[in-house]
């Protein structure tokens, strides 16, 4: 008996490589100037899922992501690495969601799956660094959670054992399935794309992508159903619109400011003996050091 595993993954702007043109003159973020990438810790999560699939025969890994149409890209990236299928949750109604509204939408989508044993998330997404969506999804579907996982040591129909990496040490914990696990960046890196899988899935598309494509291509998908990336809107997940988007978000952004530091009036010194010695004399005299 294999495990049914769902990985929650997010496409994020690459905030680690923020160039000079990333900030607009008015101090807001120029999202267009930032590359969209697979959230790094979600790749660690995917690797844990694929390892479970390797270890327990008959297991499947599904990717669920909520985002704009282009987020289908990370689903393809997951298929290239060994995931079985993908689900893109996309709808205007999701726009402006904070972590709570995002978690609500994801939890509705999860209820759409027939039977899930394990949900694996990244610990946090680098656009917000909040680490909230995992635990909030778990709460909304009434599951327990194990956060900060570095390795899933064991996962059978009854028992899951996880090594957690905390800021001041490690913990090994044990629980029962179903379980939601969030994975740290200290976990093993994700395996690279597999060339055969790239060949197999490079034409995998969502329905919107298909509609934008040409006829040949649509025939191909009809022949090979695995090339279908499922696309769900609000209607498919039976979500209550009051809990989605801006309306369903208790937190509001009041103000955004560019970061400017108060420049000080500094004394300029040279590395010559005289300058260094007079500085040291001053620091010792006023008891800053010594």
């Amino acid at each position, binding site marked *: 008996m294999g495990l049914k595993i769902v990985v929650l993954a997010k496409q994020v*702007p690459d*905030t680690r490589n*923020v160039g000079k043109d990333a*900030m607009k003159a008015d101090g*807001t*973020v120029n999202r267009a100037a930032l590359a969209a990438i697979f959230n790094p810790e979600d790749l660690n999560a995917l690797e844990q899922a694929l390892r479970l699939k390797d270890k327990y025969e008959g297991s499947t890994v599904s990717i669920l992501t909520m985002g704009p149409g282009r987020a289908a890209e990370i689903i393809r990236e997951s298929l290239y690495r060994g995931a079985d299928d993908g689900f893109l949750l996309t709808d205007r109604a999701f726009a402006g969601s904070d*972590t*709570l509204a995002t978690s609500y939408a994801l939890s509705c989508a999860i209820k759409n799956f027939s039977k899930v044993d394990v949900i694996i998330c990244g610990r946090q997404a680098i*656009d*917000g*660094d*909040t*680490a*909230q*969506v995992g*635990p*909030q999804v778990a*709460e*909304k579907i009434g599951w*327990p*959670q*194990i*956060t900060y996982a570095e390795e899933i040591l064991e996962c059978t129909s009854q028992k899951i*054992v996880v090594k957690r990496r*905390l800021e*001041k*040490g*490690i*913990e*090994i*914990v*044990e*629980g*029962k399935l179903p379980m939601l696990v969030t994975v740290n960046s200290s976990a093993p890196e994700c395996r690279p794309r597999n060339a055969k899988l790239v060949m197999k899935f490079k034409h995998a598309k969502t329905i919107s992508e298909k509609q934008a494509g040409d006829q040949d291509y649509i025939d191909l998908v009809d022949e090979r159903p695995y090339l279908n990336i499922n696309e769900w809107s609000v209607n498919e997940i039976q979500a209550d619109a009051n809990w989605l988007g801006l309306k369903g978000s*208790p*937190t*509001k952004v*009041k*103000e*955004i*400011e560019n*970061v400017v*530091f108060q*420049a*000080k009036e*500094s004394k*300029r*010194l*040279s*590395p010559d*003996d005289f300058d*260094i*010695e007079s*500085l*040291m*004399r001053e620091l*010792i005299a006023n008891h*800053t*050091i*010594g």
Partner: protein
Amino acid sequence: MNNIFVYLEIEDGIVADVSLELLTKGRSLANQLKCKLEAIAIGSQLDGIGEQVFSFGVDVLTLADDKKLYPYTSLPHTAILVKLFKEEQPQIALMGATSIGRDLGPRVSSALFSGLTADCTSLEIGDHEDKKEGKVYKNLLYQIRPAFGGNIVATIVNPEQRPQMATVREGVMKKEIADKHYKGETKKLDVSKYVSSTDFVVNVIERHMEKSKLNIKASPIIISGGYGIGSRENFDLLFDFAHVIGAEVGASRAAVDAGFADHERQIGQTGVTVRPKLYIACGISGQIQHVAGMQESSMIIAINNDPNAPINAIADYVITGNVEEVIPKMIKYYKKNTK
């Protein structure tokens, strides 16, 4: 009613620094809002907690004491907070942005449908006008945090939902005793009314917590090295200097990533926040994520061979030169001129 609650993180009977820092902040917010400051301790053998926290100005300490509540696991602690918050209706709830606070906070906020802002760097009280709805909200908690990898700072508010929840990293707020003789009241919860046996679904079977030997935060002088130091060996020069003048050695993330220094020395947005009497930045360019963790130092000396390094803008003394030339001169002068 409608007080400020701080969740106390406890390891081996000792309240974590981050919780004490939040009590200090909570006390000043409570004074401003004219409400009480409450603390909640969940764990086992909590008799010594009052002694550790009342002096921070805690008016009410609630204890949920049961053998099964330590070490921390998600569901039982969540269950207690959710029920307690439903009863007490706090206006604000604060916890550490630690692996415990970031496991617990989102779960509690989801159950109560209250907003939560992670990793705040500043908390203030202020009003908020919702122009679309034509509503004005008085005395909200401004939850201020960096976003987008530290490139912007956002102020977040929760106009409607309570409690207003926020997490804060260790070292970001100051820890200060309010009154040595302050004495609040202690309440004990009947744990069985708050937690059910089905909440104990995850068991900790092994635990290795290290007490960090290093306490950069507490050091009055920090000598910090960046990528410009060049190698792990060259960092020895900084350790020598630190040893001579009684300082600690810090590092930038680039230096840590390059393997020149250990992670626990990292200062900045994703490391520790420090505010020493003297901060000497050696071969550090001064990107915002680093500066965010040291800008409140009383005095800053920058040693950098680039006369236009951004760090120079916030330094009191700018030495334009090579670290390997300047530091030995400082050591030499110090040795010669102190006893």
